[in-house]
């Protein structure tokens, strides 16, 4: 038996369940990127002057920057002027006071995506912020969370209700000028989620944000900020989908995490943006900056991502390990199929003593897809006793895809110990044969092996997501190997 190309082609089928479009009346900005549009976005959100000033300053910085070209990605230039930077479902007056006032069409959309927003129908123990194009349409369980002192709301609401927290932490992990896409986001960001966990508080439920791109010719530029105060713990989940379209759409988000002393943030993502069709038409361009800052001793930030969607993924969730004994983790499964391209990985910057980081990356490439791991482990002179362990494995399904590994390791402290291992191969014929000889159909056997390959990452996901991720992988691969 062999992994011949025709087998792969026969078996890889596109089945994107989230690809529908919701026909809803919209309020949207004309296409174009300029100061007027930025002022318009700010005005729509009734933002204070300081935030508008920050946006304009970021825009000025952005205009001096050029698009990065170092990633192992090939795509035509993105015309930023053709994109609309604000699109929101029209609402009556000031917007919904409660779920009962949310447009039923929106509730139906989320229901269809498997994210019921009515609390009685919801998964117990998971609070959801639902972001639809440029606005948050609903946040559930806010009352219950408030009892514990936890703030979980849309970013726009946080700017209004908790300006002191937003001002203190916004841009403190990812400054506006950090990179081209972060600068763009800082200028035009629309909505996203804000989380604050007070001191010594264990967040009583999982928090999650569900991002949905719906409108045509728009981009989504959400901004998420999570602050875990001293001794607190939170687990946050993020999911993303978009309709099937022939045009590419841009998603350029920024996520900032701040973990103070003894705080623990677990951030999980299942990214299932529309990946484009079998010919590589359409799909989301996903350029995301995610970074966490372990500011105090014993802080811990753990990123887990399952990346199956998007035509282009450019994403490096990172950890700044400043506090001594702080811990950074990155667990990733990135699956690319058809003409998808991913350049993803992480940065672990060890500043404090005895800081530790673990990187486990599993890349799967099928058909013509290109999948790259890019990572940086940097040990600064003060990071006495720092430890890093990195394991990067790539699986190739078919002879026209590519798998690439670009780890950067910079060590400036002799007491540090850094280990990096990587391997690239196709599915073992012996394993496949063994399973089939036990009576397991080929497609199931492949799924079983791929799932096994991803096990070290899936076990890091919260239970509900792990099941979801398993299914998603099976669908995205639908028999990717013969």
């Amino acid at each position, binding site marked *: 038996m062999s*992994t011949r190309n025709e087998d792969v082609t026969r078996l890889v089928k596109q089945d994107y369940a989230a690809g529908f479009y919701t026909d809803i009346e919209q309020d949207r900005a004309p296409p174009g990127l300029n100061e007027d549009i930025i002022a318009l976005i700010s005005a729509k959100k009734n933002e204070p002057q300081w935030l508008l000033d920050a946006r304009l300053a970021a825009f000025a910085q952005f205009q001096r920057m050029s698009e990065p070209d*170092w990633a*192992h990605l090939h795509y035509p230039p993105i015309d930023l002027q053709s994109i609309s930077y604000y699109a929101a479902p029209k609402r009556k007056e000031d917007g919904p006071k409660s779920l009962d006032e949310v447009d039923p069409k929106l509730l139906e959309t989320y229901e269809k995506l498997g994210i019921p927003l009515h609390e009685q129908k919801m998964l117990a123990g998971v609070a959801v912020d639902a972001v639809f194009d440029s606005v948050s349409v609903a946040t559930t369980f806010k009352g219950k969370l408030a009892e514990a002192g936890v703030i979980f709301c849309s970013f726009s609401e946080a700017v209004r209700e908790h300006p002191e927290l937003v001002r203190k932490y916004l841009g403190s992990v990812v400054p506006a000028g950090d990179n081209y896409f972060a600068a763009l986001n800082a200028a035009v960001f629309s909505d996203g989620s804000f989380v604050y966990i007070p001191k010594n508080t264990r967040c009583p439920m999982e928090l999650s944000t569900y991002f949905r791109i719906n409108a045509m010719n728009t981009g989504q530029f959400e901004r998420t900020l999570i602050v875990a105060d001293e001794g607190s713990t939170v687990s946050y989940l993020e999911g993303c989908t978009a309709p099937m379209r022939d045009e590419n759409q841009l998603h350029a988000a920024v996520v900032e995490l701040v973990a103070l002393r003894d705080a623990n943030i677990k951030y999980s993502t299942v990214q299932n943006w529309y990946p484009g069709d079998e010919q590589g038409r359409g799909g989301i361009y996903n350029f995301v900056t995610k970074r966490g800052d372990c500011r105090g001793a014993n802080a811990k930030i753990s990123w887990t991502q399952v990346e199956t969607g998007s035509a282009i993924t450019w994403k490096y969730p990172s950890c700044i390990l400043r506090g001594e004994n702080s811990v950074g983790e990155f667990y990733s499964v990135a699956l690319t199929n058809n003409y998808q391209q991913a350049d993803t990985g992480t940065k672990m910057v060890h500043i404090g003593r005895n800081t530790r980081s673990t990187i486990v990356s599993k890349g799967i490439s099928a058909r013509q897809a290109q999948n790259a791991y890019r990572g940086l482990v940097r*040990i600064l*002179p003060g990071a006495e006793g720092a430890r890093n362990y990195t394991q990067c494995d*790539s699986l*190739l*399904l*078919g*002879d*026209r*895809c*590519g*798998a*690439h*590994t*670009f*780890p*950067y*390791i*910079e*060590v*400036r*402290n*002799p*007491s*540090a*110990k*850094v*280990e*990096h*291992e*990587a*391997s*690239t*191969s*196709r599915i073992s014929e012996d394993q496949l044969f063994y399973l089939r000889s036990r009576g397991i159909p080929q497609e199931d056997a492949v799924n079983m092996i791929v799932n096994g390959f991803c096990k070290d990452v899936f076990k890091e996901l919260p239970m509900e997501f792990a099941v979801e991720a398993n299914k998603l992988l099976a669908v995205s691969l639908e028999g990717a190997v013969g």
Partner: protein
Amino acid sequence: MTAALNQALDSLAGEFERVAATLPAADQRSVANHRTAAVDRLRARGLPVTRDEAWKYTDLKSLAGNRFRFTGPSATALTRQQLPALTAHPIVLVNGWLDPVLTDLDALPTGVSLSGLDQHLTALMQSRAPVDDAFQWLNDAFLGAGLHVNIDAGIAIDQPLEIICLRTATDEPAMCHPRLRLDIGAGASVTVLERYVDLAGAQALTNVVTDIVIGQTATVTHCRIQAESPASYHIGRTYVDLARDATYQATHFDIGAGLSRTDINIEQHSEGSVVGLDGLMFVDGKRHCDCHLNIDHAAPRTRSTVRYKGVIDDEGRGVFNGRILVRQDAQQISAQLHNRNLLLSARAEIDTKPELEIYADDVQCAHGATVGQLDETALFYLRSRGVPLATARALLLHAFVGDIVDAIADSKLRQLALTELAGLLAALEPLPELT
């Protein structure tokens, strides 16, 4: 480009203008054009800066402080007996130029022919497509020094062919741009020892290009030892081209020069070729050593195994970049690359980047990199047996470099490598004589 690098470039290009007319075959239009075109490309592109990915960790700005003089061939007062040679009849380059007195042309083994580059200039000019490599262009601009070795098909040579690139002391900083071209005939087998040595007081820029073209089923064992003085800059390019079922077995020692940058580019463009490459960099003082390795698996059933180690002490900085490329349809590839590094002092630094770029699926590829200090558990084990700390450290250090040296098949070569390393390691941790 920075002001410092502009200044360095002006100096290098200015030196070319000064000596262009005196270079070999300067009156041949094609040769002169080739040189001028190379300088023009260099001027247009500039010297590499740390924003260039391939030079991310190596800053050349210290070049600006020097005005390197290009030196033509000249007689030396050295005698053969004074040469630090391993073999009886070494091939000797003095400041880049093949020395007809120190080299005993009559003593070459049967089937080996050796000459300067004069008759080969036209062939060398066509030997490689222009690549984005400032130092290759610089070498092209001064094309003329060096040697050409041809080994007839089917010849097996049992003695190592020793090439010594000697720098003599000069009053002002000097530079040379030699080209070493080795054509190994089909089925031949040879061991080549390529050495870079400074005589006391040399302060120089060596910018050498070594081209090794290996014919079908031929086997080359290559040992390259760069042990120039800390006052020197060493830029070395090694190109290896393997025909069908050819074998390249190499050991590269980067243990000298204040700033050293070597690029090893290996092309496995035909089926069945095998590459085994070991390397060791040793960086102490304020030295800087950068090794870039690029293995191109362009044909099916090719194999490569790389073990490259770094020992970094004092304020030294080591850089390693090892890339394995497997091209589309190059199936049934096995490629393994391992880079291990020891940091011995608080101000030492290592930057390493092993890379895999894979476009075929029937492959077994892996790489690994480690950075750390001497294994604490092993140290404790030895000390609990009564081995003093310094001896225990020395034992582990020798063990770390030992497997690279032990893998050298030729006993004379192995002994030479041991001798070269012994001095360096002794300075770190003397190993008591125990046998």
